[in-house]
């Protein structure tokens, strides 16, 4: 089966960005299945992965409707190559250690919780409906990751060292949350997308509170990574997609 080509209108590109971020992060979380430090956390991380997968499915379905070419959610997930993926770079980084996963989930959820809250009043009624569901899910993800961040940051010497390393490694990837290009501008003007600039106070407040409670220094201003929204990815995404996509590409239309 060949790779599909998607003609990206701004609206379609925007929905694919959200869908791809949810799917790629979901896959990274699912890699913990059977490997988490304890059974309870194994279930917690895969629960979060399944929430994000559910969001991705609804968003791909919406993308298929917007595109109007009779494609399915699976076509978008399995039949595009890395340069066609529009996810945030922070989502595709390898899962790392437990601290890395927790810090990433904290950053991601601290942005996406207020994001989905605002997206509930999107003029795109399908997106608003998805936001209604996603907002509740991400509220829990933030609570879970935040609670661990506090315990790891203010825990043992080793957990604190690992958490600080994860914060240093991941902070440069948080700039992409707030990036607005032409697609973003068009969507904000149409009332479809929340303006990320308006989400910054909420994002900062959440991190301020959690970092204070975890007794961690706030990450310093730094150069920010960019590229995911344009399909310029790290070397990790291709490897991840090879694992994720190989089965439906080797056996097109395979069913359970």
């Amino acid at each position, binding site marked *: 089966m060949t790779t599909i080509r998607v003609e990206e209108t701004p609206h379609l590109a925007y929905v694919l960005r959200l869908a791809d971020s949810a799917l790629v992060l979901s896959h990274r979380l699912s890699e913990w299945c059977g490997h988490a430090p304890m059974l309870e956390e194994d*279930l917690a991380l895969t629960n979060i992965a399944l929430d994000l997968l559910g969001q991705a499915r609804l968003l791909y379905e919406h993308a298929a409707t917007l595109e109007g070419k009779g494609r399915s959610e699976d076509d978008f997930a399995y039949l595009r190559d890395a340069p066609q993926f529009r996810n945030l770079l922070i989502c595709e980084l390898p899962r790392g250690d437990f601290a890395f996963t927790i810090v990433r989930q904290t950053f991601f959820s601290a942005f996406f919780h207020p994001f989905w809250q605002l997206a509930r009043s999107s003029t795109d009624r399908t997106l608003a409906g998805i936001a209604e569901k996603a907002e509740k899910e991400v509220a829990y993800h933030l609570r879970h990751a935040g609670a661990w961040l506090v315990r790891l940051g203010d825990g043992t010497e080793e957990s604190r060292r690992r958490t600080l390393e994860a914060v240093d490694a991941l902070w440069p990837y948080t700039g992409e949350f707030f990036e607005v290009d032409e697609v973003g501008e068009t969507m904000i003007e149409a009332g479809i997308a929340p303006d990320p600039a308006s989400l910054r106070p909420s994002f900062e407040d959440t991190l301020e509170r959690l970092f204070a409670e975890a007794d961690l220094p706030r990450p310093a201003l730094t150069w920010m990574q960019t590229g995911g929204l344009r399909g310029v990815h790290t070397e990790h995404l291709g490897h991840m997609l090879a694992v994720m996509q190989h089965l439906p590409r080797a056996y097109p239309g395979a069913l359970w």
Partner: protein
Amino acid sequence: MAEAKMPLWEVFIRSRTGLAHRHVGSVHAPDAEMALQAARDTYTRRGEGLSIWVVPSAAITASDPADKGPLFEPTASKIYRHPSFYEIPEEVGHM
């Protein structure tokens, strides 16, 4: 996993249809807040719960199984404690 850092908690769930919390199992967690989250993720994955209690397992005092004779056998001879012991007069009809 050091037991001191990840103690055991007993989990009680009140279901949609139930009035009382019922014991469903246990989780490991560093403290009460995380125990609640672990209980949510472990025991309410299929829409079972409306409310969760977690209790440190160490806080539970249990009866000794070896005591089952003195504790439970004396009730066996007190059959008058069961409603079925009593005959209901005809005139009462269905209760």
